[in-house]
């Protein structure tokens, strides 16, 4: 059977997110509890989490989480890291033995900073340099897969149900100001750990429920801009599109939403002149990045989170608020499981992004 990345595997899923605007700490077991309620939306072939603000002691260093198939791939990767980064700390990621999670790869964590002279030689800025190095490891080193590489954030994922993945990674030992979670229901997968979600590049992470019908149009478009889609999953291509639009094209997240879930022309025609012109411009300029078909996504980034549905809202997504904390979920029940009393709960319309950010002055 072909490994993920050699064949395209669509999947349905559950997604969930918690964001604390005032920066108060949310323990990892809370998000695990919420996603566990949607057990039936996954099938045990992938679960994962992304936590933000979980490594304050290393906030200025890139936290790399890497899967290795073998000692050889680890040695090769570490040689590469040594020659491109200053490694501040390295260790295995602590895990708990459980019956539910089997055949784990070697899972390592590194806190690194790019070597200054290497950055100068490359004429790239720090983020681009790091992103390229990570893409290079994933493309060229057999058996090594970097699945998280942002600052003060980390992705934890495995083949299994999300609640088992949380136990495996001892998620209760981490806390941060934001979490996203994913339970996967792939229709056909050999069960590769790298194929689980969230999918992340630098501090941008995406969890996604849906199957996009525009996939190959989007993939072939984003691959023009030095990305390589190795996994052939929707989440991967959405992450790269968002990374391209925000980091390289400097679009705001709202503008990104107007591109990937662009309003219908008939909707644009109802807007006032300036807004209609802005929306039409974005649609024409980035027509290759329009995403069609069902999706609900949660995008985590440093200091914020965005929830977005496809423009027809073909996947469920609800948002709840309690005080300064915001909850996102495929199903309302998952929110109620961790916060029964909400100030407000609503289902955002298709194509309408919900963007939350940290309150001003909050240090993470």
């Amino acid at each position, binding site marked *: 059977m072909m490994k993920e990345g050699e064949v*395209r595997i*669509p*999947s*349905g899923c559950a997604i969930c997110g918690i964001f604390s605007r005032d920066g108060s700490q949310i323990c990892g077991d809370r998000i695990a509890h919420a996603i566990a309620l949607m057990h039936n939306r996954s099938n045990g072939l992938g679960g994962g989490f992304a936590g933000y603000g979980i490594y304050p002691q290393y906030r200025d260093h890139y936290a790399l989480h890497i899967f290795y198939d073998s000692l050889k791939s680890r040695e090769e990767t570490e040689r590469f890291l040594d020659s491109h980064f200053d490694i501040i700390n390295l260790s295995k990621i602590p895990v708990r033995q459980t019956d539910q999670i089997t055949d784990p790869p070697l899972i390592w964590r590194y806190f690194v900073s790019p070597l200054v002279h290497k950055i100068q030689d490359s004429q790239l800025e720090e983020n681009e340099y790091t992103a390229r190095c990570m893409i290079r490891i994933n493309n060229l080193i057999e058996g090594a897969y970097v699945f998280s590489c942002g600052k003060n954030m980390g992705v934890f994922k495995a083949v299994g149900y999300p609640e088992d993945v949380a136990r495996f990674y001892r998620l209760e030992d981490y806390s941060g100001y934001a979490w996203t979670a994913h339970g996967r229901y792939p*229709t056909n997968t050999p069960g590769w750990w790298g194929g689980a979600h969230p999918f992340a590049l630098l501090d941008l992470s995406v969890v996604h429920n*849906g*199957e996009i*019908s*525009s*996939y*190959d*149009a*989007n993939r*072939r*478009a984003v*691959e*023009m*801009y030095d990305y390589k889609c190795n996994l052939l999953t929707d989440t991967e291509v959405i992450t790269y599109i968002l990374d391209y639009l925000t980091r390289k*094209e*400097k*679009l705001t997240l709202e*503008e990104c939403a107007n591109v990937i879930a*662009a309003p*219908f*022309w*008939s909707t644009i025609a109802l807007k006032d002149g300036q807004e209609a*012109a*802005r929306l039409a*411009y*974005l649609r*024409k*300029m980035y*027509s*290759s990045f*329009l*995403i*069609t*078909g*069902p999706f609900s996504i949660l995008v985590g980034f440093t200091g914020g989170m965005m929830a977005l549905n496809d*423009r*027809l809202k*073909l996947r469920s997504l609800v948002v709840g608020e309690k005080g300064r904390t915001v909850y996102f979920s495929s199903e309302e029940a998952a929110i109620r499981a961790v916060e029964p009393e909400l100030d407000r709960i609503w289902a955002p319309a298709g194509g309408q992004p919900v963007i939350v950010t940290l309150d001003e002055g909050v240090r993470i």
Partner: protein
Amino acid sequence: MNLIPSRYRINLRKEECIQCRRCTRECSFHAIEFRGGLVFNHEKCVDCQRCVAMCPRDALYITKNENRFACHAVYSTEALKEIYRQSEAGGVLLSSMGSPGRTVPIYFDHLLLNASQVTNPSIDPLREPMETRTFIGRRPEHVERDEVGRLIDNLPPHLELQTPIMFSAMSYGAVSLNVQRALAMAAARTGTCFNCGEGGLHESLYQYAANTIVQVASGRFGVHETYLNSASAIEIKIGQGAKPGIGGHLTGAKIIGDVSKTRMVPEGIDAISPAPHHDIYSIEDLRQLVSSLKEATGYRKPVIVKVAAVHNIAPIASGIARSGADIITIDGFRGGTGAAPMRIRDNVGLPIELAIAAVDQRLRDEKIRDRVSVIASGGIRNSTDVVKAIALGADAVSVGTAALCALGCHLCASCHSGSCAWGIATQKPELVDRLDPEEGAERLCNLISAWTSEIKEIMGGMGINSIEALRGNRLALRAVGLNSRELAVLGVKYGGE
């Protein structure tokens, strides 16, 4: 002695015939005459089906001449006839319309489309918006913002089409003015564009400027400032799929009256389009012509460069994309023509499917696919061909032959005779009158809206609700009956993969 037997036989169901002699008046090739009774000159019949269509009693039918030459495996009957014709007249074999292709595969027929099941809902176009609006033109590399951070509209002018189907270039002279009128009216009503070809633009069509593409070809016929500004886009015609590398020749007999005036060619003088543009001997010359045309029209109109699909089409397209052109039209091997040397038509160039796939991939490899738009033409027969061409990588398509068929053409491939019985490829007033532009426009509108409905249905089935999400979406295609080299060039997987 006649070495070449007739190709067709005209047959009469005598019991049905009422001797109305309508067929004798309709046959512009003099294949049916009345001399005391109906007389059939089978050798003059081109199988245009005009008599059949106009017979009030359905009394006529045309068949192939059953006579055949010795069954030789190498020299077919057709091959022998061609030798006889050339040994008789000593000339270049002429033909018209698109190449019948013979052994060249029609790749569209080997490609199958996808549909959503379970994991992804199909979308009902009767219930949900289904967008076929297409913008074609150039895109800048990056956005720009003003001092307060608002986006500046830095897009060069685009063509806005309500459906990704345009009408291909067909010149006044090659076709009648009534054909162009029908095309122009239909383009205006369906929100697309027609292309006036290289014969200039008749003044009565200036009113359709918003739906007109004007052509600048090697003969520069009818090109002047008003002409350039009476259009929404300008097309530089380098080549044509039916006859790559060959110029054009409109005989003096057709250069009469308004054709002469519109072309700005004296009456009765042959209008010769040279094979190359004599001011374009290389790609850097093309850049200058693109710039000149943009200067002449104040940078308000996109410039299209049309080339025939030839073996080196990918780098050629890449060169054009870097020449300042906004749009590239690739015209495939099966594209039609009013007249072409038959050997050229049937042996030079590439099928559009291979060309469009190669060009789209090359422009992506060079990271410039999003900078320009690509139009596919030459052998687009129906709505699924449109969908497949777009999934292979085209932004839009244009159709010539299908449009003419909507006006009555039966592909008899005798356009070069000038006696078109349907009033399409002729300048003879009595034949031209046979085509009512209003009725023609209606049939063209019907065709475009029927195809558009089918495209929406197909897109909905795939869960795609906007045409741009189909562009280059090759996973929407699977192939059957092709070899692995063909799959590689087309960039599609085999069925079941």
